[in-house]
């Protein structure tokens, strides 16, 4: 899906477009801090808009599989630290490049960050620090999706924690500091274990000794190492995704964070986990995931149903949305596991569907959950509380907000016509072919539909309580969620927009990683 115009724009850019995209937010963040609170928001909006523009142009003008570098476009390499005294010594490098999968994730992160910047309009406290951190966060997120070197990947992966920690702790509500610390320690632990897995891969890459994913790719692993690496990856990516039993940080951080913080957490940070499973697992060493496909699938199904029931029990709307996130992200893990299993037994068709579904789920969930979090955060301003039982008669009192809530909720439980439906169908079709018992996960959908409709019933369609005041959300608060509904609906009727970008990459992966 390439357009000549986009290609022309990309070829006119000075330098490597990926470097530009990483540097622009840094510059923007610096300016936002230096120029002070008055212009910080304007700069942040400008920067994120430019970045979103870049992401769209990049997605339109870049081949999903380039001719060389195993399909990576804009390949860039730089040495960070040499591990020795000669120039031929092994080194820690910073390698960038994008293929179809990264393109989708970059598009998603810039979209979500843009929406989060729009919905930051309630941040009034030390704005310049906030937007500086916000833009630093954007660099970190993009870096994760662009990195092709394990240490560079780890660097960005960890870099994301620092601004997120300050955003959650500094601008969140009561109790957010504890949530920020918990978030930091949980994810740092997971990534630390993952790092040991990286080291082992480095050791196995003898005699080249490299962290470069392109070189490590398709490396046959010893069965014991396969399981070891899959477990290490599970810790790193599973905490972020999150999977039961590593999910405990998520409700805390998501609920206590300021609304844009929750949007980025749910919209992108969780996708980092899914992306790590796909890029480091399925793309780089599929054997590792295949070795633990069944346990992963079981965990995914359990997480889905468990999170759905827990979500049902929540009274705080944001908390309910947070558990919905866990519930949905388990579909990504199921897709990953199904791909691993099907790939190892040679069922290409099913593997293809499962991976399409997993990636589509990430994109679709990123957009839908952003709307849900903005709406949930808006309840605080509209009704003075986020407690579901306390909000009544939203439809009568605040029809605009209610309409957005309804649309987002329908999308969240996967009604046909919205993108969530396509994602769930793809994953399910991919997994049940050879693992029929994975159909159990549909019970999760059943529960999800139940609690979301119940929530709508209590909040939106109930009779208004005359004693409680509910004000309509102003338009400037509704722009962000309404804009974000566009991709949700668009992808629901035209899924090939995303699938078309990733399909060439999946084809090559299914062919064993070799270029066609």
């Amino acid at each position, binding site marked *: 899906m390439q357009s000549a115009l986009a290609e022309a724009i990309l070829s006119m850019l000075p330098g490597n477009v990926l470097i530009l995209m990483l540097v622009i937010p840094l510059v923007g963040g610096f300016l936002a801090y230096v120029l002070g609170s008055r212009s910080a928001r304007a700069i942040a909006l400008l920067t994120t808009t430019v970045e979103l523009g870049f992401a769209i142009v990049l997605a339109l003008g870049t081949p999903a599989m380039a001719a060389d570098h195993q399909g990576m476009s804009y390949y860039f390499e730089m040495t960070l630290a040499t591990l020795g005294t000669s120039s031929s010594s092994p080194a820690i490098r910073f390698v960038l490049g994008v293929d179809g999968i990264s393109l989708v994730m970059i598009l998603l992160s810039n979209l979500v960050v843009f929406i989060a910047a729009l919905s930051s309009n309630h941040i009034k406290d030390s704005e310049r620090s906030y937007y500086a951190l916000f833009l630093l966060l954007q660099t970190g997120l993009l870096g994760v999706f662009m990195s092709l070197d394990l240490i560079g990947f780890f660097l960005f992966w960890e*870099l994301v924690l620092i601004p997120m920690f300050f955003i959650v702790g*500094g601008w969140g509500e009561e109790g957010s*500091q504890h949530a920020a*610390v918990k978030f930091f320690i949980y994810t740092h632990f997971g990534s630390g*274990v993952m790092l040991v897995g990286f080291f082992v891969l480095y*050791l196995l890459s003898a005699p080249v000794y490299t962290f470069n994913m392109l070189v490590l790719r398709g490396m046959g692993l010893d069965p014991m190492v396969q399981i070891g690496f899959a477990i290490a990856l599970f810790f790193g990516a599973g905490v972020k995704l999150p999977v039961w039993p590593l999910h405990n940080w998520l409700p805390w951080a998501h609920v206590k964070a300021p609304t844009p913080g929750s949007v980025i957490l749910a919209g992108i940070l969780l996708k980092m986990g899914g992306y790590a499973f796909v890029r480091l697992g399925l793309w780089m060493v599929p054997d590792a995931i295949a070795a633990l496909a069944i346990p992963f699938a079981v965990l995914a199904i359990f997480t889905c149903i468990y999170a759905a029931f827990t979500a049902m029990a929540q009274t705080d709307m944001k908390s309910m949305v947070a558990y919905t996130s866990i519930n949905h992200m388990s579909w990504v893990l199921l897709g990953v596991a199904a791909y691993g299993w099907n790939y190892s037994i040679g069922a290409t068709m099913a593997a293809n569907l499962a991976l399409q579904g997993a990636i589509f789920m990430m994109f679709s969930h990123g957009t839908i959950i952003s709307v849900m979090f903005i709406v949930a955060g808006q309840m605080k301003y509209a009704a003075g509380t986020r407690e579901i039982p306390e909000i009544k008669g939203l439809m009568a009192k605040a029809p605009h907000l209610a309409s957005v809530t309804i649309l987002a909720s329908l999308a969240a439980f996967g009604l046909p016509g919205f993108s969530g439906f396509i994602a769930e169908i793809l994953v399910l079709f991919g997994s049940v072919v050879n693992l029929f018992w994975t159909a159990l996960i549909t019970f999760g959908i059943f529960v999800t539909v139940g609690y979301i409709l119940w929530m709508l019933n209590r909040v939106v369609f109930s009779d208004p309580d005359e004693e409680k005041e509910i004000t309509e959300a102003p338009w400037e608060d509704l722009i962000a969620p309404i804009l974000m509904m566009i991709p949700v609906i668009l992808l629901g009727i035209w899924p090939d927009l995303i699938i078309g970008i990733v399909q060439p990459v999946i084809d090559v992966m299914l062919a064993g990683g070799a270029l066609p």
Partner: protein
Amino acid sequence: MMHQLDLLADFIRTLFAPLSDAITALVPTELLNDYLMSLPAITLVVFAGIALLVGLRYNPLPVSFIGVILATVEMVLFEPDVLGGSSFGGLFVRDAFGDFFIYIILMVAFLVLMSTTLYGGNKGPYNFLLMVSFAGAIWVVMATDFVGLFMAWELMSTPTYMLVALSPHREGIDGATKYFVMGLLSTSLMLLGITLVYGVTGTTALSEVGTQVAIIWASPYGVENAAYTLLLAMVLFIVAFGFKVGIFPGWQWVPDAYASADGSVTGYLAGGSKKTGVSALIRIMMVAFLVAKTEWMPLIVAVAILTMVIGNVLALAQKDIMRMLAYSSIAMMGYLFIGLAVGTEYGAAAAIFHAFTHALTKTAAFILIWAMSVRLAKRIKYDDLAGLSKRSPLAALTLTVFVLSLAGMPLTVGFYSKILLFHSAAVAGLWWLALIGIINSVFSLGYYLRVLKYSYFMEPKEKGKLVLARIPMAAVVLCFVAVVGLFLYADLILPYAFEAAQALLS
């Protein structure tokens, strides 16, 4: 291969060429061959004397500064590669390994002198003791002979006992006493170790001891007693030098002495004298006992793990920031010993690099807290950090970066030093040791994040800006720039660490 800083060194050499030419021309060759390489240390001793005399009437601090800068210039001017590194008849030798640590010591010395403007720097004896200790530290690093090592060790340690006691806090005496008593114990253990080694091998030169150990290890049958005696000596060395480093089992004095001494001395103890213990131990293990690696490796691994755990667990329980940083220093040395335990060139390089980053970060952190402590006239607890970001944004930012560097997070040089240590362990097959190190590192976030939480998320108890003394803050900002700058460009320093490790193992 040319490294990045060689250009700068060449520039300094051309700039000071007249000076070095004058020295080589005026001084007789025999003297030159014997003492030239120790000139930086001798310079420090001479300037220590001058500072003592000047201190009778005037502020001696400028003299000390000139001494340290001159010593650094001399380090650059007289290259061991060109002139041969030996001095004092081979007792003290400069090589790439030693040079790396000497530069660490001089860097810390400079920072510490900047910090003494807060307290003590205007007194002659204080300057004298500091400078003599710096000189001793340099000789410790250069020593390739047990006798020389012992003398240098005492020259370095003795002034620090007094410096700790000179603290403005009343409990300084307690800390100094504990430090002194444990120091004497470790010294006696070291002497015992040296005697045992001499008794078995008949020599005190490290490289010759290495040869003898190799012979014994090659055919231990019939000389088992000699082998066991050497192993005992090895354990004694680990305990004795480990005392200064603050590792298990000799770490107990560290928090008391660090927290009760004045912050500049603490900065020196943590950044400078601690590193000499590291260098001495690395040299002994890697030069004299390298063939016995299979024997000492489990020992060092155990020491590393215990040190990490003790440091981290106890740091979590502290309320006083100085004590917290002291325990964090202990934990840091535990990480460093992972590199030593690995025993490869890579491991040694990682340990050496970690020594550098730790010296940079910890010294700066101690100076910063000390500056705050002097300004507020009390010991800094977590509560005193509340709202630091509002009262002094610069202090909060720099403290944050130092703490993140200690935690090994990106944007700081600590990221590389930890990655390298754990990676070196994993590459040598000790992936479980790397995992233990990483889990400890995660655990340490418990107290590091508390610093960030207090300084950024809490409301200040007192209103008003906190204005810190200018010169110590300049030192802190210098370190801040270095910590962030070396993250962006670690190759500025890293190849020297590898060169040092190569020099050690060749």
